[in-house]
Structure formats: C-alpha cells, structure tokens
C-alpha cells in the first residue's frame, strides 16, 4: 500500500450570513469569543495527537463555514500547536478557505505569517446580479480585488465558481469561465449549483419557485463546455469539480479521494483514522454550542468502526471521483465483474492495467455508475431471475 498521507481538517462553523444554497455546517453568530474557541481547538488537537503523533502531516485544511473570519492570531495559535504535535512533510500544504470581501483580504498576510501557504477563495460568480441572487456579500469587483491580494501574498491560490445557475445559458457561462481562465489560475473548483433540501433555495424550489434552473440536458451541456475549455487552458479536471495544472492539485483533497487518513476537528468535522489496523470513521458534535461543551468533557467525537465492505464502498465512492480512478484488487475485480463488464460495455468505465476509472462519458454519471456497481443483481441475470 502506498503512503496515502495524513491530513488535518479544521472546521470553523461561522459565517457572516447564511447563503441560500448552502447546507454546510455553518452558523451566523453575533459574537464569537475567539479565545475560548481557540482553547477548544487546541484541546482537540492535543487529544487527536495522542493517537497520531507518530504520523507525518501532509496537509492542514481550514474549512467552513468561513475560516477567513478567524483572527490571524487564532490561526497562528492553532498552527503553532499543530507544529508542536506533529512532524510535517517537507512540502506541507496549509490551506485556508476564504470569502473574498475586503475585510477578509486584509487578514491574508497575517495568515501567511501564521503558516498558511494556500488559499481557496469563494468567488462563486463574476457577475454582480448573480452574486446577489446567490446571497453573497461581495461584489464581483471586490472578489477580483481579493483574488489579486491573495495572489500577491500566497504562491498557491485557488478559487471556486458555482455554475449552472438560474437563467445561465451556455454562452453566458463560457464567457464567465473564459474570464476566470484569463487569470491563469493554478487551481480551480467549478461546482454545478446543487439544490439542497433544508436550505432556502431547497424550500423555494420545493414550492415551485426558483425558476430558470438548467434541466438535465443543459446541465450536461454546461458540463461538457466546462471540460473542454479547462482542458484547452491547461487546467483539466482531476476530480469531478476540481481542475488544476499538473502537480497543482489540492494535496489535502487528494487524501480524501485516495482513501488516506485524516483527522477532523471542529463542529461536525468528519475524519478517517486507521489505528492498529482498524479503520475508524469519526464525526464531531455538529452544533457549535454543543461541541464547545463536549470538548470540555472530552467527548466531542463519536467513532464507528468501518467494516470491510463499507471501506470498499468508500474507496470506490471517493476514488472514482478522481479522473485517474482507483487501483482495484483482483478480489474486487471478481466481486464486481458482472457490473464492471456491463459498465465497460456501455462505455462508462474503463480498466487500464489494474486501475479502474470513468471514461469522459462516464464522469458526469458517477452516481449512476456507482449505483450500478453496487447493485446486487447483475444485469445479465435479471431476466431469468424475475421469470423464475
């Protein structure tokens, strides 16, 4: 087994305002006492280190919520403790997710001094009307300014765009994406807007509102355009929604997708840890208030041992998101042979040596491919079975 690395995910659960499409664990609080939150994170870092201090850190990721609401000092104290608890790989990646308002951009150099070496900026759109529709607090101008500041401070800057938005046609998106590519980013995350139940958009959609969302066919066309343009610009997809120049992939996310170990710290954070040969799924208390008090009692996290078949499922679920796919064992090849053959036959997956990956046609159909892969009933037997 190659070393898949070890990462640390730190979740900051607060935002300035809740975006109507967002179902991440994010909360809007009037006042946050950064000192007591810092103490809680430090305590959790120590707890996790007790079991993992022998591991070498490949990546630290501050995600959210909006981690760019953290004081520079908070980030500094956390990273200081991280450094004390673990050894780092030479080229350790330390990413922070930032929202692109001017206030937040003003903290970038402090983050850099604290040790952050990569930021991921949530631009989301380059158009003011659409930014407003998405409930964002920044304008397109502010976003681009923040991008410039970020680039002057950090070597590695990525940004996020949400596409397949209301009333967005192919021309509009290609023009917007072309502008984004003109900045010659090293890394880009391009997410199709997902309407999540339980969000403001979800409710509006369920009531029949939120008109003008692309249908499946337009969604697929937008996807195709995105693949083509990013490839031509030298930023092909390396994962479903992530694009990078060679060797500029997010090392942190690669840990998730390749099935490596990561500890999750902060409200609602997930982790996967292999301890004495057993792989565990960990999940922290979701509500910020409950998490804070649970940390006090050293009980912020619950653990579930993953079974062989769950591990296998996760390897496929996460690994097939990568363009390069996953390595597949002879045993797995055997178990899934009927379904794999079927999916190969209809051109959605391919097997190259012992790697299984989606074809370009299969990539936008990952969920359907997975559900076929794990279907109990191989298609070849279906007829004889139902008529017996």
């Amino acid at each position, binding site marked *: 087994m190659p070393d898949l690395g070890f990462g640390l*995910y730190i*979740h900051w659960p607060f935002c300035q305002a809740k975006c109507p499409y967002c179902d*991440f664990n994010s909360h809007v609080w009037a006042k946050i006492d950064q000192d007591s939150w810092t103490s809680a994170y430090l305590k959790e870092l120590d707890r996790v280190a007790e079991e993992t201090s022998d591991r070498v850190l490949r990546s630290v*990721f501050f*995600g959210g919520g909006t981690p760019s609401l953290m004081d520079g000092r908070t980030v500094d104290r956390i990273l200081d403790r991280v450094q004390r608890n673990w050894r780092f790989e030479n080229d350790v990646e330390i990413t922070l997710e930032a929202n692109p308002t001017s206030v937040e951009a003003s903290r970038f150099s402090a983050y850099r001094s604290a040790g952050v070496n990569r930021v991921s900026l949530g631009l989301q759109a380059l158009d003011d009307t659409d930014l407003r529709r998405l409930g964002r607090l920044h304008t397109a101008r502010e976003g681009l300014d923040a991008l410039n500041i970020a680039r002057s401070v950090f070597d590695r800057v990525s940004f996020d765009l949400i596409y397949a938005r209301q009333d967005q046609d192919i021309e509009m998106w290609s023009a917007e994406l072309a502008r984004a590519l003109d900045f010659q980013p090293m890394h880009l995350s391009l*997410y*199709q*807007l*997902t309407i999540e139940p339980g969000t403001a958009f979800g409710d509006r959609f369920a009531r029949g509102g939120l008109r003008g969302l692309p249908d*499946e*066919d337009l*969604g*697929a066309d937008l*996807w195709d355009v995105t693949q083509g343009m990013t490839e031509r610009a030298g930023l092909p997809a390396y994962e*479903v*929604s992530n694009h990078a120049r060679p060797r500029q992939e997010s090392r942190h*996310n690669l*840990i*998730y*997708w390749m099935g490596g170990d*990561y500890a*999750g710290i902060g409200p609602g*954070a*997930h*982790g*996967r840890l292999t301890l004495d040969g057993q792989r565990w*799924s960990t*999940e922290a208390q979701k509500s910020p208030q409950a998490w804070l008090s649970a940390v006090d009692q050293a009980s912020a996290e619950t653990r579930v041992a993953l079974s062989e078949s*769950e591990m296998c*499922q*996760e390897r496929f*679920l*996460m690994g097939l*998101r990568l363009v390069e796919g996953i390595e597949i064992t002879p045993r797995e090849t055997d178990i899934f042979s009927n379904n794999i053959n079927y*999916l190969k036959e*209809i051109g*959605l997956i391919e097997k190259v040596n012992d790697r299984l990956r989606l074809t370009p046609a299969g*990539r*936008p*159909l*990952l*969920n*359907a*491919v*997975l*559900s*076929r892969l*794990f*279907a109990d*009933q191989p*298609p070849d037997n*279906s*007829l004889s079975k*139902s*008529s017996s």
Partner: protein
Amino acid sequence: MTDLTHIRNFSIVAHIDHGKSTLADRLIQATNTVPDRDMKEQLLDAMDIERERGITIKANTVRIEYDALDGQHYVLNLIDTPGHVDFAYEVSRSMRAVEGSLLVVDSTQGVEAQTLANVYQAIDADHELIPVFNKIDLPASDIDRVAEQVEDVIGIDASGAIPVSAKTGEGIRDVLESIIANLPPPEGNRDAPLKAMLVDSWYDAYLGVIVLVRIKDGVLKKGDRVRFMQNGTVHQVDRIGVFKPSMQTVDDLGPGEIGFLTASIKQVRDTRVGDTITHEKKPCDGPLPGFKPSQPVVFCGLFPVDSAEFEDLRDAIDKLALNDASFSYEMETSAALGFGFRCGFLGLLHLEVIRDRIEREYDIELITTAPSVIYHVFMKDGTKIDLHNPADMPDLTHVDHVEEPRIKATILVPDEFLGDVLKLCQDRRGIQEDLTYAGSRAMVVYDLPLNEVVFDFYDRLKSVTKGYASFDYQLTGYRQDNLVKMQILVNEEPVDALSMMVHRDRAEMRGRAMCEKLKDLIPRHMFKIPIQAAIGGKVIARETLAALRKDVTAKCYGGDATRKRKLLDKQKAGKKKMRQFGKVDIPQEAFISALKMDS
C-alpha cells in the same frame, strides 16, 4: 316480536354525497337509538376507508323505534346504502329486503344520474318512494327547482316531498311521520313455515359469519336448525339479534323484521346472498326468487413490488375476499412481474378500495396492471374464450372475432357542458341513444363500450364538466368490434403488464399516448430506451427516452464519505420501488399512470 302493522322497513337511496348517511344519523338520533355522546358524523360509515373517503361502501342496517303522533309505537328498519355506481348492487339487494325507500335529493344539486338509477331500481322492486329534499340549510338550496326536476326527469309526484336538513335536523319529524303514513307495512304470516331472505353476510373475527336476514314468514329463534335452501346446508342458529346499530340479541325475529343470525359458519362463501333460509324440520314451500349475483366487470393484475411478499399478498387477498363476495381473484404469473393475482372488481372505485386496503392494512406495496374488461374471443375452431387478461389473447390467426361488453350510460349535465360531454362520448366510440332536456339540464343516454369507460372516463367527465355532470351505467350485452391486442415494448422487450385490448381505429392514438406517458414516467437510464407500441409485431407508435446525461454529486463535504454512502443506500431503496424489465427499471406507478388519457 312486533306486530306487522307497527313495522316499517325502508332503504335510504340517493346519488353519491346527497346526504344519506347524514340523514340516517338524524333518524338514529331523533329516535334516541344512540345516546348523544356516542354520536358522530356518518355513524354508520364505520370502515376506515369509508371515513377517510367520506363515502359509504357497504350498506348498513339499523333498527330504530319511534313513538308516532298517532300515539303508537313503531319499529323501523332502515338501510343506508352507498351512492357510488360501483356499489349499486348493494342498493338493489337492500331494496329487496324492504318495502319502501327514502329518495334523497340534494336540493342544491338536483336530480343526478344515480338518483335516476335508484328510481328505476325502486320501480323494479315495486317500492313506495318518499322524496326527501336535503340540505335546505344551504343558501343554494332550491326546492322548487328540484321538485320540478323530479317531476320532469323522473316522472314521479313531488308534492309529498319533504324538505329537510340532515345537518340541522330540520324536517326529521316529518320524515318519520311520512314513513309511518306513506310506506306500507310488511306482509307475512307468522304461523307459516319459516321463510327468510339472506340479505347480506360478512365475517366477524369473534362471531364468525354474521348473516343479515329479512323474515318473510314464520318465526326464527335461537337454537333453531335452519336450512340454506340454495346450497342445502343445515346450521344450528346460535345467536339472533338486531342492529341498533351495535348488535343486540333478541329472543326471536318474526315476519317483517330484519336482523341477524350467527350459526358458527366459517366462511362467507358458505352463505349465498339472496338465498332463502327455512327450518330444517318444517320447510317452506319453495325458495324466494333470489338475487342476480354481482359480477366483477373490471379486471387487473395485482403484484407485490417486492416479489418476496407474494405469500403475504395471498394472505391479504384471502382475508379481504372473505368479506367481499363481489371481489374475485386467481393466481397469475407474469414473465416480468412474477407471481401475483388477477382480480375482478365491480368497478374502478372498488378496485381502488381493495388496493388501498391491501397496501395499508397489510403493508404490501403493489403494482397494479392495466384494468381490463372481459372479452369474448371466438376462435376459428368454434370455441369461445372469456378473456380477462389481454396478455392471454391468443394468436390472431386462430381468432375469428372478438366481442366486447357494452353499457348503457346515462349522463346528466348542465347544457353549457353538453358539447364537451358529447365529444367525450363520441371519442370513446359511443353511440347516442337519447338526448332530452329538463330545464337547463340535459340527459344523454349513450351506448358505450365498457372498456372505454372503465379506466378514466369518469375522471375525464368530471374534468370537462367542472364536476357538474353525473354518470351512471348498466351493462347491456356483448357486441363484436374490431378489437386487437396492443403490446408495449420497452427497450425492445414486450411488457405484458402493459398490454391492452384496443379498437383498431383508436390504436395509433392510444399507442402514441402510452409511449409519450411512459417516456415521462420511466427515469432516464444509462442508455437510451426505445418505447414502442405494437400490434401483432407491427410497431404503430414509438418514442425514445434519451440516455441519462448527468448524475453526479458536485461537492465534497470535507471528507464526509459517510454522507455519500448514505446517498448510495438511498438510491438503492428508491430502486426497490421499481420493477426490472430486462435492463430497464419501471416505477410501480407507471403501470396505472401510463393509461390515463388526456382526452
């Protein structure tokens, strides 16, 4: 035992929702049969499905006692009947057990199709009728107009009609007095040998089969040994009683009375409605005329979504059939759906009721296949087949001709919608037989093929007339026509559960409609799917369901693989609600929805 002259027996009949059960409530209350604290609306509609849908499905008998203005004490037996056409059989046999009927007419609506049908049945049964104009508490009530309609459309004298509000109780005394004054007391001879009519029977978990009887002659007592004349079986009566409406035992039942008996009978099937019950030792001279048995007219397949539940389904159907003689079933195997049952129903509402009960009371999810009627298939070799299932249609080369059941449909409709109704009937291959007017309402009579009506005719009728039309029908007979079996092929494979008999001239239209509907109902798959309609191998309509193009979760939640695993499990659960045909998953609701026509 009550003296004959102090008994009145009557049924309450009306078009659906005109207030029969509510009127029964008031009669029960006005006679203090049930204490006020135990009263609830439509007390007699006791079945869950009746309460939920707000309709009566099963006729109910109640004995009430009334002190009339003449100072005499009377025993009244009332039978509340269902209004829906599917259960018309309940009305006709109830009428056979009584001497008169209250013909309830909603005075805000007027005479409707079932009002008419009820009148014809009453005339058949030689009944006295008392018209009762209900819902006079409502502002839209128009008694004069309704009286005029009753006289014009039905042709009976409306001068004795009683205006009431079954809601407020206004006029209820008048109804009771009119019953005493205008309905004939029953006839009968208490010294003659026992002659009782078996009106109805149903299964009770504690008492076994309960038999509803109307005594014509003689006296029935507990302990008597009685013979059911049609099947010759002899039983010892272990309990007799009356409904108030809860069961109360009595010592004996004499001529003119309606009550029940139990006799440790295990199965409803052992009791035939319309049978004559007499004493074993001292039998009566001969049986009563009996009833025409109710015949299922609509057939469909019921299959469990989860084929592992077949035995549970068998159990559920067995139990339901115990109590419902008009529901027939036999096992059926389908190449695609596996094991299930071919079931016969009185109509579509009956089908829905049974299906609902299986799904809810027995928790079995069902696939319902296309409803069909019984075709008579005449083979070239001179034999005749009763075809209940289009999938069983023999090869055309052996078929000489096919006959289909026809109905006489009576539709009452405000004249502004008449054009739409005529068009609908015409589209459904109808032949107009009559068209008359009563004020601003038209009454049309059409000869229609039952198969064009069975499925969604009533829905369409309601929708083209904004709910203002009413409809009633009777089977008339069979007639030859150019009927063919249309198959539906999904991904080149025939789906037998979607096969149907259609008229050749309507086949293209129906085929196209089916293919279009299925295209919307079947989710996209990873490959494109041709959907075709064909007659004897010749494709007459075709649609193509495009292949799935996008199905991927865009975001990743900070390494939350658990969430993705759950999503996969959810997808799997969703698949369970579908059935696989070759490589294609078809959702269970598709089988019925595909048949709904928009015109």
